[in-house]
């Protein structure tokens, strides 16, 4: 589908350790926020790194009709923004300086006024203006994660690959961050592939999900209909229910590890 992301027969791994073998992902339309789900070590980060150009892969990853692997580096960086799992390094750089450096390298021809406007807009959105001239090594882990997210959102790339963008955030900023991501996509017809562990956040914010397990995509489709008790048992090894909250959103309630798991049965709710 034009404007979308489509993966076909993707093999990714590390020397002597294949992680993903034959990942297939149907095309997602422009504006889609796609949750990349799966248990620990299922290959979520590996897949995002490969698509971001940090790991070699075999197979086809196409975006907006372009084969990502065939794009020259500068065109690829104009198309793809990537938020690593680790936040920006704690250095003596100022927060604003880090954002400027991203633009000076990724979009050197963008006029200074436009760069300042974009940074200011995203910093406002993610509450970073108060610390814009602080050293990065004085920020909390959560603020550094928001800075990393701001760097990607400000670049406004058509494809955003976000590796656990809310893992260090409190409840309020998990929601703020996901709203910011969704609004950025919808306003510009971009696509985001977001690795997440919080299934309820994924069900609430994502248009679609892809669940990784056993080295491939176990299921992919609309969030509300794809996440089922059977899939959760298979992917995560848990007995869980998918219910509706009072506002009608689907929510996952995990009861216990499926047979063979080591943790204790939780109270049913």
């Amino acid at each position, binding site marked *: 589908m034009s404007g979308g992301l489509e993966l076909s027969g993707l093999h990714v791994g590390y020397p002597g350790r294949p992680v993903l073998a034959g990942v297939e992902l149907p095309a997602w339309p422009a504006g889609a926020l796609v949750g990349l789900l799966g248990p620990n070590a299922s290959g979520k980060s590996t897949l995002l790194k490969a698509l971001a150009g940090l790991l070699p892969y075999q197979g086809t990853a196409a975006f907006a009709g372009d084969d990502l692997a065939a794009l020259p580096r500068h065109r690829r*960086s104009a198309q793809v923004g990537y938020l690593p799992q680790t936040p920006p390094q704690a*250095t003596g750089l100022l927060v604003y*300086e880090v954002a400027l*450096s991203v633009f000076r390298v990724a979009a050197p021809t963008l006029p200074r006024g436009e760069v300042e406007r974009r940074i200011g*807009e995203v910093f406002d959105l993610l509450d970073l203006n108060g610390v814009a*001239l602080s050293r990065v090594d004085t920020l909390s882990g959560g603020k550094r994660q928001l800075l990393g997210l701001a760097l990607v959102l400000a670049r406004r790339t058509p494809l955003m690959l976000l590796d656990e963008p809310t893992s260090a955030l409190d409840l309020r900023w998990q*929601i703020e961050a996901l709203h*910011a991501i969704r609004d950025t996509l919808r306003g510009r017809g971009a696509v985001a592939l977001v690795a997440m562990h919080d299934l309820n956040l994924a069900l609430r914010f994502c248009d679609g999900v892809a669940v990784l397990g056993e080295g491939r995509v176990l299921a992919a489709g609309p969030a509300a209909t794809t996440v089922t008790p059977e899939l959760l048992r298979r992917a995560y090894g848990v007995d869980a229910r998918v219910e509706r909250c009072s506002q009608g959103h689907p929510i996952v309630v995990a009861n216990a590890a499926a047979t063979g798991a080591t943790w204790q049965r939780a109270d049913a709710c």
Partner: protein
Amino acid sequence: MTHARGAGIAAGTGAAGTPARYRRITRQRTWLLAALAAALLASVAADVGTGPSGLPLATLVQGLLDPQALAPAERVILWNLRLPHALLAAAAGASLGLAGAETQTALNNPLASPYTLGISWAAAVGAVAAIVLGLEGIGTALLLPLAAFAMALAAGLAILALAQVFGSQTDTVILFGIALVFACTAVISLLQFLGDAETVQQSVVWMMGSLARASWNGVGLIALTFALAAPRALRGAWAMTLLRGGEDQATSAGLSVHRMRIAALLRCSLLTAVTVAFVGPIGFVGLVGPHIARLLLGEDHRFYLPGAALTGALLLSLAAIASKLLIAGVVIPVGIVTAMIGVPVFVALIVARRRRL
């Protein structure tokens, strides 16, 4: 953006003030760079004015403007000893400071320096071999620096080759460097064990790092190498700044981190090889010059890189003056003095910084 939940918007704080306030910070840094440059000029002038022969300031100024106005002995002292000595200190310090700054960022390691990578030690192998094996006596005065340069360059190229083959991950390169340090130390020990007492003493003095062999050739070559390397380093200042933010982020923004590391290591190898060939291994400047620059100017590499070069130059220039003043009538090898001056300055800066945070 349509989303309006951000606290910044809710609280009515805008982004409008940040660029203006940041520009003020960059202006302050520019002034600080200018102050460092002025301090360096003053230090070089003081270095030229310092020496056992006690030439009056007026004579020195007159000799600089019109060399023929000086008596032959004074002319030799000013033009063949003091000026090359002072300029060599500045040029060597600037080269080591820049090499250290680039290496620390490229390898993401605050302990990285031409010393850590073993390049200075490889130069020492070349120089000690030339002294102990008596090669210096059969060649010109340039044979010893040539041997040191050749070995330092070979070490730099070996590290580059290994980084190309095994990847330029920072740990790998640092480990190669440490292995090289041990290998070079062993070879130096063997050469000294085989040498006689006189050559061993000469080699030990060379390894202390000294400006005593200052010559216009040395000044010219070091300045030329610096003039070639510095603009290239500065051209990549934004990329270096981005790399400080994190390697994955830098790569996804379109930066070839591997290629950048290779280029930085190549510049470091050349700067160090040429410098060490003429002044011997002076370790402290390449390590601490960048740290002082970082404390003074932050880590925006547009300021940090020239700052590290200026700090390195200033540090070595001050050390050169002190080396003539600490013991009357004796010029102490400058490598000893850099640590004696640099350590207290460095510790004071760190303490001041901690108090401010």
